[in-house]
């Protein structure tokens, strides 16, 4: 994290020097789906915005924008009020973003986690969170005594299923007996539902809990119950200091700074970005020493290997629940397969809700 921070501060200074004149009117807008104080998804996007601000670029944000009819108006207002680059940070903004982009060809748009780039001024970006899940799986497989890993899942979209699979594969590698139990909560943020789900999983014997939802409720439930857990999106360590082994951190700051500078200097181009541990868009919070220094070393090595590309989260042979081969031995899943992933791997219990 700090290395990245240094890297973009240096690049900012460098670019400021090169471009010579900073465009004083240049403004970047952010649209958030939740409140900036959610300590998860939106919180991390806002940290990214603050980094853009620290790089000397003016920013504006609008928080808690519902993903319905209101989103289009907010995005349009940002475009109309002189914002030159607009980040829309939730999947539900996909169609509104493209619609507004059509009417404002001179404004650049960046949509997180979507797949539609209908106009040349729309880019999409997302992070390879599944690489972090691989590390979580390794730790979970080693730490579990009951061999049951509890997983609180939001929606059965490829991103979430990818995370479940990556975690399960990594856990199986170190502990062939593990089972992944899943509770679908159908929400990204609902502390009540999330804590109920965590409790249900613990009652079913899970002694490691992980979440693909954004509130701190599951780790707090895990802390109380005395089981292990992992934080999501931001470092949630202070909410469950004993229970949390690490957190997957979404670090949007380098990307936001880079794209904002590119847009200001006129070098912005449409692209589809999918960054992971290597680029630092996915980062890991400090590892809990309670798991023992040997395991910490192992995981740190695995993290390095994933970042360098020496190890891939989806290395064959990978089988689906029925035993059909998904990825052949010796090969790795390509991005196309990862992007559309909608089957569980062997070892995951239950069916994907369809």
């Amino acid at each position: 994290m700090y290395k990245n921070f240094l890297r973009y501060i240096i690049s900012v200074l460098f670019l400021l020097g090169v471009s010579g004149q900073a465009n004083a009117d240049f403004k970047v807008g952010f649209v958030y789906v939740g409140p900036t104080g959610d300590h998860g998804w939106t919180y991390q996007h806002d940290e990214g915005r603050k980094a853009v601000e620290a790089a000397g670029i003016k920013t504006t944000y609008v928080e808690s924008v519902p993903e319905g009819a209101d989103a289009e108006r907010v995005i349009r207002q940002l475009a109309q009020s002189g914002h030159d680059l607009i980040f829309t940070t939730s999947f539900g903004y996909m169609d509104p973003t493209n619609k507004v982009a059509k009417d404002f060809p001179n404004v650049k748009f960046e949509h997180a986690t979507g797949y539609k780039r209908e106009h040349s001024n729309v880019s999409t970006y997302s992070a390879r969170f599944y690489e972090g899940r691989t590390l979580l799986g390794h730790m979970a497989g080693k730490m579990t005594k009951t061999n049951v890993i509890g997983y609180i899942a939001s929606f059965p979209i490829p991103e979430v299923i990818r995370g479940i699979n990556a975690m399960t594969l990594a856990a199986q590698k170190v502990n062939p007996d593990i089972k992944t139990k899943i509770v679908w909560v159908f929400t990204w943020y609902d502390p009540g539902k999330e804590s109920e789900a965590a409790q249900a999983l613990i009652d079913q014997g899970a002694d490691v809990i992980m979440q693909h939802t954004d509130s701190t409720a599951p780790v707090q439930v895990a802390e109380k119950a005395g089981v292990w857990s992992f934080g999501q999106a931001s470092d949630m360590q202070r909410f469950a200091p004993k229970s949390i082994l690490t957190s997957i951190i979404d670090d949007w700051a380098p990307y936001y700074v880079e794209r904002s500078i590119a847009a200001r200097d006129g070098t912005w181009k449409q692209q589809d970005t999918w960054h992971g541990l290597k680029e630092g868009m996915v980062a890991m919070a400090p590892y809990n020493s309670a798991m023992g220094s040997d395991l910490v070393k192992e995981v740190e090595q695995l993290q390095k290997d994933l970042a360098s590309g020496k190890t891939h989260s989806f290395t064959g042979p990978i089988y689906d629940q029925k035993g059909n081969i998904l990825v052949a031995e010796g090969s790795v899943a390509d991005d196309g397969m990862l992007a559309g992933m909608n089957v569980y791997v062997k070892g995951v219990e239950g069916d994907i809700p369809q």
Partner: protein
Amino acid sequence: MIKIEKRNDVSPSIYFLTPILAIFLTLIGGGIIFYVLGFNPIEALKFFFITPISDLYGFSELLVKATPLCLIAIGLSFCFKSNNWNIGAEGQLIFGGIVGGGVALLFYGHDGFYVLPIIILSGAIGGMIFALIPAVLKTYFNTNEILVSLMLVYVAKLLLDYLVVGPWSNPEGFNFPETRQFSESARMPILFDGLRIHAGIFITLITVFLSWLILYKTYLGFQIKVSGLSLKTAKYAGYKGKTMIILVFMISGACAGLAGVGEITGPIGQLHRNISPDYGFTAIIVAFLGRLNPVGIIFASLVVALTYLGAETAQIFLQVPKYTGQVFQGMILFFLLGSDYLLFFKIKFLVLKKNEL
């Protein structure tokens, strides 16, 4: 000692002026809040209430936002006037959206003028059926309509969740929880190029007119009013209470269903989990702010819609927290209820003499 007495002589003009007083007090209260937060109150209020509607687009957005609020509140006024507490308009909106959306998906790829009217009609029927549940349970099983209608909101939300995640999800949508975009034939016609104001506003205006007609010019309207003023009188007069309860719930549900279908065929164009930012609940504020009067509700819906737009603009230009909009809505209701209390009750400060103790 403080003594509270009921007033018998409340003049109708003051009764309709207090909402305006409430809005005025809200402006003052809002100004104080902005001042405490460190903003220039006049400038902040300008961004909040004037900037959002200073151009044609903003004005059109105000109408887009006010249309469903007005429609639902009109429906609710039938219930509230007759002492039926339908709190579940949000659920009726969602269920209307589900039925209308289902029909729209059924007609996916069909062209024809008949598609949209069928969708709108089915949405209204959907909302109506959903409102019948609390009505029938109340009339035949003596259940509490507040609880039943409120709980059904969650039923509708979960049903919508299930449909957009599962059977109705877009086959090309990577399992994301949303349906396809409806065909052009299933969308509300846009009234002006580049603006989002759509034909749904006519449905609202026609409904307002019909409501006025029913409430003030028909026997049913009279029955509704009498039941609201005194249930005993209504019984004594021999009104069929059950039929009326079912009827007001049906009207209310149909209005909410229409609002739902207007949203999905209008600005949204598909079904997903967030078709309504709690319009059904906000409409309760609108109904009372408008004094359950059709014309009053039109103005109230515009005021409340403006608090939403204002919260966004104030956030963009001043970085005022988003929730100030909700604070404003809360203040309006607070001041309205507060002035109502003083309107209907006298507070007397009595100095008691020794021998009276």
